[in-house]
């Protein structure tokens, strides 16, 4: 490996001491000698084992749950149901005042995906818990299920999640999808020499960590709980567990350590709340660990994404318009998909300067396993579509795919579709070096091109932009008036933003009455008590920007 230090040498201090050097991982000795301690290496006396009865149906109403035989199983100490939950539904982003509490930790009278936990069994041994699980009889009334994002958006599609109230997540009070509007895409598509369209489909991907998700909870005499866990976000999971159990966070002591593989799959905080609740109700230490089959089937995968791209292209290779519709399959519950959808919109239209851009990014609910974070979720799928499409465009106009990328790559000083000026662009140089290493012939012009020249000026301009709002078929919106200035629409008048300006419209907090949870639609015949009214928004924080899922930066 060679680092091209000659590129952008004046833009950085030449003090790289680790990049490009072989470095021994600090934890490798423990791993290869088997001495690394994981959460499950904590040996605790008097442990109860938690196992869940899981839905065999993709979508069904639960008529009844018969646990009588399970209760009689030797070793069984307690069975947890939805009625035992302090908070009836939760979403891990609502601790940041974003999103809707839409997922019950145990089924609330309905199951929305295959594998959803219905009741939790606590027993003296893993074996006894498994035997009791096999004895629980659940009487289902199957409901029509929907597995395809576009089918789910059609009027008359089965409603997946009553807490959400529709099969798509509504952003910023009254947007059916996350939108980017920059210039007049329709006019540009009409005047382009060629329009190149494509459809790209991602499959869900499981993180498949060697260590399956789990935790061990130990109650202490002072009313606190020590939680040994493999979560990737220790304090994020602590706060979410406290919120879900309605206890002060200082009653929880989370102990992390080495995570046996995460890749984004261990932030959902699905095991800790149930295990702590079980320890609270029994006064015993509790262990809850996913089996391999559970890890594969019910832990959140990367979501399936479907991406449509329509490019307006000129014969000389300039892309003058890019129109994208991006569907995220959130599965049955939000988890982090609402955020992944925003990320995808923030990533389009890729590292290219395109004067007219139109993006609709949808967070859609289906009866599939809830999807969530995985290694650049929202971005990776988009890149697969964008870069595949760049090759399709190159072929359509008979241009070299590397040259097409260099021609359209953003330059320093260019205005991005998100109203941010490009800084530190390096795509041109990356393509040049890749071409050189692959002995790919480039034209003299492409070889001499640079990310630092040709940008700015006319390319820094924000074009006049029609700001039509996209509606789901049959959707009428909430009718909520959304202040254009606060949402950052009407950009033609606004100043270009620099640096770490939040996404337009990302103001969060109390200012968005219709982004608050709506009470779920309930069936009259349901026997269980209705869920609590939604938590009132705390308000008054001003704008919030995610710096990662583990924290927010308040501005």
């Amino acid at each position, binding site marked *: 490996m060679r680092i091209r230090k000659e590129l952008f040498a004046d833009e950085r201090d030449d003090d790289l001491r680790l990049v490009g050097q072989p470095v021994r991982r600090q934890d490798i000795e423990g791993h290869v000698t088997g001495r690394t301690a994981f959460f499950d290496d904590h040996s605790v006396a008097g442990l109860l084992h938690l196992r869940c009865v899981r839905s065999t149906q993709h979508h069904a109403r639960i008529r009844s749950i018969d646990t009588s035989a399970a209760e009689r199983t*030797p070793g069984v100490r307690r069975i947890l149901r939805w009625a035992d939950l302090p908070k009836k539904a939760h979403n891990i982003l609502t601790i940041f005042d974003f999103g809707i509490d839409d997922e019950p930790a145990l089924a609330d009278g309905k199951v929305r995906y295959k594998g959803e936990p219905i009741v939790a069994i606590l027993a003296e041994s893993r*074996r006894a818990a498994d035997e009791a699980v096999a004895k629980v009889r659940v009487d289902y009334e199957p409901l029509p299920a929907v597995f395809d994002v576009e089918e789910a958006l059609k009027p008359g599609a089965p409603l997946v999640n009553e807490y959400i109230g529709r099969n798509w997540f509504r952003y910023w009070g009254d947007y059916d999808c996350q939108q980017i509007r920059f210039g007049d895409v329709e006019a540009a598509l009409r005047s382009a020499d060629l329009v190149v369209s494509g459809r790209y489909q991602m499959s869900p991907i499981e993180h498949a960590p060697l260590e399956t998700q789990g935790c061990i909870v130990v109650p202490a005499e002072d009313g606190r709980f020590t939680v040994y866990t493999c979560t990737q976000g220790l304090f994020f999971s602590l706060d979410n567990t406290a919120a879900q159990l309605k206890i002060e966070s200082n009653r929880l002591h989370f102990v992390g350590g080495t995570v046996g593989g995460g890749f984004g799959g261990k932030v959902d905080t699905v095991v800790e709340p149930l295990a702590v609740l079980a320890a609270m109700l029994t006064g015993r230490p509790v262990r809850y660990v996913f089996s391999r089959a559970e890890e594969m089937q019910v832990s959140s995968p990367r979501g399936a994404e479907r991406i449509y791209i329509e490019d307006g292209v000129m014969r000389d290779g300039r892309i003058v318009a890019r129109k994208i519709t991006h569907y995220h399959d959130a599965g049955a519950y939000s988890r982090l998909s609402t955020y992944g959808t925003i990320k995808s919109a923030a990533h389009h239209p890729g590292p290219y300067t395109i004067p007219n851009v139109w993006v609709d990014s949808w967070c859609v609910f289906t009866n599939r396993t809830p999807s969530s974070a995985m290694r650049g979720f929202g971005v990776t799928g988009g890149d697969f579509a964008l870069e595949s499409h760049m090759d399709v465009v190159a072929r359509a106009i008979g241009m070299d795919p590397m040259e097409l990328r260099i021609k359209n790559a953003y330059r320093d000083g260019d205005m991005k579709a998100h109203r941010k000026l490009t800084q530190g662009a390096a795509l041109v140089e990356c393509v040049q070096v890749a071409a050189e290493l692959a002995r790919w012939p480039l034209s003299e012009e492409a070889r001499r091109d640079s990310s630092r020249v040709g940008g700015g000026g006319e390319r820094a301009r924000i074009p006049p932009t029609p700001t039509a709002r996209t509606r789901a078929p049959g959707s009428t919106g909430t009718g909520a008036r959304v202040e254009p200035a606060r949402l950052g629409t009407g950009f033609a008048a606004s100043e270009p933003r620099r640096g770490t300006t939040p996404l337009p419209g990302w103001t969060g907090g109390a200012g968005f009455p219709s982004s608050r949870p709506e009470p779920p639609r309930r069936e009259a015949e349901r026997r269980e008590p209705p869920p609590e009214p939604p938590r009132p928004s705390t308000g008054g924080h001003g704008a919030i920007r995610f710096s990662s899922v583990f924290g927010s930066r308040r501005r």
Partner: protein
Amino acid sequence: MPLEVRSTPTLAEAASLLQAERAARFLAGGTLVVRAVNEGDVSFSTIVRTSDPAFTRLRTAGGRIELGAGVTMAQILASRELAFLHPAARSVGGPAVRTMATVGGNLFAPHPYGDFATALLALDARIRLASGFGAREVSLEELLRGRERTPRPLVASLSFERPADPAAFRFRKMTRTRPKGPAVLTIAAWLPLSGGRVSGARVAFGAMAATPIRARAVERALEGRPLSAEGVAVAVAAAAGEGDPPTDPIASAWYRQRVVGVILRRLLLGEP
């Protein structure tokens, strides 16, 4: 009911225990049974194992090669006499699995596993079953047909004729990930030549039905033919009609039926 592990000094005692208790499973290498325990399988509550030395004995001296059912894939790979079986043994799992996985266990490995059983089928292996009342022998085909029956028979050992020409044995496994993915399909073939023509062929397919199977139409189509492009054409065409391939996360039935002829042709012609 807690899980009980019972160790027996002889195979006959193990067989008696298994016959007496329906909710018992025999543990050889544990790559299937222990995984089931870990995944919360409560269909059995007793595990039976044996320390009978005959169980792990490997005999390559006589005219027939005899493998105790507890012989591991690693043992096969360590035997120079069994070099012709190394590709089949190496196709089972990774090194950790091969250290534990046994030839007897592989006969019961559910689809799409059972690559070594496919190889044994092409070698026309005979199976010695242990029982409380003494041993009896069945063909491997017969064992595979009835392997889901309870109580499951306990395999003590298996044997097959020492190949006069080890080169007559060929083995191919098609996987999505290399080197150790589960089989899209597996083909093992015994192709003795007489005067340049196939005589007495045995061809076995793995992952092309619920259990490994013999491909009889393919065998008939090869009889008396040379292993040339023209000579194998009829056999290749017959391949798709064999078995009843399942659709699973590895491949669809449709795909398996279309690709089996391609892999068979490559195997017969010695193409890469």
